[in-house]
């Protein structure tokens, strides 16, 4: 809608300029046609960005995963990834962390969205929650890892407090923080606010009239959620969960800053493959691992697109 408006509004003054300068002629028509394409120039930087930082690397990963260091075709790396217990375990761990944090983020973020949608429109709670979510959804990487290390790490505030006052407990012995359970806790920290951001519009789309209609026809709260609210929200909810899954699955910096031994998840295995000074030449193997990630994320994204179609039917 918006784009259409801009185009039609922009067309008029341009034609005026023509009439003033050259008058109607075939040359003018050609120029006019060329100028009509002008707005598409604005898309060029975006397309260039997508091409350079998304399509090109994906192409490299997919092709190079099948090429050995002599440049010949090989299935070796891909087969190793698909059969090695260590690599499969890393994929299992990655998927496990992503599923757990997507569900936790989805449930708590969903409840938070419900609370925000029902709060006063310009109230303090709403504004504070929205602002905080905007910040925390992007609060990842080294900063986030450091925040957790300073709080729950071996010399963390909470750890020292608990070991001095309460003896042995999981808070005084934080080895859990440096494994996949630690990752689950840390990732949830940015998953909940992200859920709020992507899910709130759907919750706000629930019309008050529907609830009123349900109530005036004698429906219970349970009935409303089972037959109206639930079905309307379910596709958006599942879509948001899939987005959270992909978000956690592809996270690297936070895990890299937190875990230095054992490389339990796939992004850390890729780091090991391409950055090892012990075994050189693992770049192609790293690309085979990355290919595995691309496949997992593609499956998830296909699911997301499918659900998005169902959502847009409701939103129309």
């Amino acid at each position, binding site marked *: 809608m918006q784009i259409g408006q801009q185009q039609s509004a922009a067309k008029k003054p341009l034609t005026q300029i023509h009439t003033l300068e050259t008058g109607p002629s075939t040359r003018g028509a050609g120029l006019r046609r060329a100028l009509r394409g002008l707005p598409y120039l604005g898309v060029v930087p975006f397309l260039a960005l997508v091409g350079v930082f998304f399509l090109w690397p994906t192409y490299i990963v997919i092709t190079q995963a099948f090429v050995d260091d002599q440049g010949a075709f090989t299935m070796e790396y891909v087969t190793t990834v698909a059969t090695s217990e*260590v690599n499969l375990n890393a994929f299992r*761990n990655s998927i496990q962390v992503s599923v757990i944090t997507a569900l936790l983020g989805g449930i708590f973020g969903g409840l938070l969205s419900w609370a925000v949608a029902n709060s006063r429109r310009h109230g303090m709670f709403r504004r504070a929650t929205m602002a905080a979510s905007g910040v925390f959804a992007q609060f990842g990487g080294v900063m986030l890892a450091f925040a957790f290390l300073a709080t729950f790490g071996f010399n963390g505030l909470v750890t020292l407090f608990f070991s001095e006052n309460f003896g042995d407990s999981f808070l005084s012995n934080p080895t859990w923080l440096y494994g996949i359970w630690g990752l689950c806790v840390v990732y949830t920290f940015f998953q909940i606010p992200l859920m709020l951001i992507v899910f709130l519009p759907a919750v706000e789309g629930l019309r008050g009239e529907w609830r009123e209609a349900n109530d005036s026809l004698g429906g219970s709260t349970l009935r409303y959620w089972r037959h109206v609210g639930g079905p309307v929200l379910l596709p958006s909810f599942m879509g948001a969960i899939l987005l959270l899954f992909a978000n956690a699955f592809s996270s690297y910096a936070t895990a890299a800053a937190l875990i230095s031994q*054992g490389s339990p998840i796939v992004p850390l295995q890729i780091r*090991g493959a391409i950055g*090892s000074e*012990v075994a050189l030449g693992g770049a192609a193997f790293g690309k085979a691992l990355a290919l595995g990630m691309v496949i997992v994320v593609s499956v998830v994204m296909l699911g997301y697109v499918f659900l998005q179609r169902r959502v847009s039917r409701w939103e129309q």
Partner: protein
Amino acid sequence: MKVQKKVLVAGMAAASLMLVTACSSTDSTEAESASETASESAAESTDTGAAVDAAMATSAADFGGMDGLVAACEAEGKLNTIALPPDWANYGEIIQGFTDKYGIEVESQQPDANSQDEINAATQNAGTDRAPDVFDLGQAVALNNTAMYAPYMVERFADIPAAFKDANGLWVNDYGGFMAVGYDANKVPEITSLNDLLGPDFKGAVALNGDPTQASAGWNGVMMASIANGGSANDIAPGVEYFKAMNEAGNFLPVDPTPATIESGQTPVVFDWDYLQAGQVAGLAEKGIDWKIFVPEGAVVGGYYYQAVNADAPNPACARLWQEYLYSPDGQNEWLRGGARPVLADVYAAEGTLDAEAFAKLPPVSGDPIVPDDQQVLVGNEYLIANWSAAVGG
């Protein structure tokens, strides 16, 4: 208004396009001028060195002795080094010492780069005057790229033990040391054997420098534990068992130790090269930390760095003069003062030119050092890739 907005967008697109082309054109002019300078300087050096092709010289004798080498380097006027951190093995002072002695400017590029970056820089900048003249490499990278080195034998080449050099002088070990356990004597009891570290006094206290499948220091730490527990350079498995037991006892810390973690008390016990720890002792003492270094008896695992001359060195004579300086008593003593064990230490100690005070500060070592070779590293690494993750319970 709308038109303006649209024109603005188009203008921005055009501007960004221009920016892109402008950037690339500057790049190419830079590269051109760089290669011009390179060919100029190459021409110069052949002019001045008339009789000598510095890039082919394999010893100072090819220049007619040290004086000839110094003169040839002075004509070049500059040395490019790469990946030499000033606080690593005393490189800050070594570079200063070289400049003071010969009046040659040293351009220390990317001081914090790693070994692979050195090779990459030499490949990418080949033929320009920005390429590194000399390399200081870790074992794996060094032995994988021997085709890029120019053979050169320093004056004392014959005195370097055969295990520490390539017979043709393609590379020579420069400094190194032994795998060791460093610990804060104020926080944990004295360590007399690696098995102490499995006891209850070391709960959540022991860190390994890097994941052994990725970091050479970590790999050698596991190898040391293996040899202390009945393994050998060909068998790293007992080392993995050792760390597994340590992890089950709750003593293993999955934290990468750094001077900062040592200072803050996070990592009171650290497996790392003795020469990397020795350089920190004085600084830690100032902060009230009594850092002790322990090399277990009968489990001495050695690791040395590899010095080599870039075959495509833009300053071939200075690259060779730098080698002479590093292996002279000056260079060797400066490494020693940085806590590293220079390769000619024993030779110069016998001749009385070694800094005896600095030598006495190195941790005592008893037993024959084992230096795992390239093949042993690969075999050990395959075992680690399959078993390390599970052992430390990632």
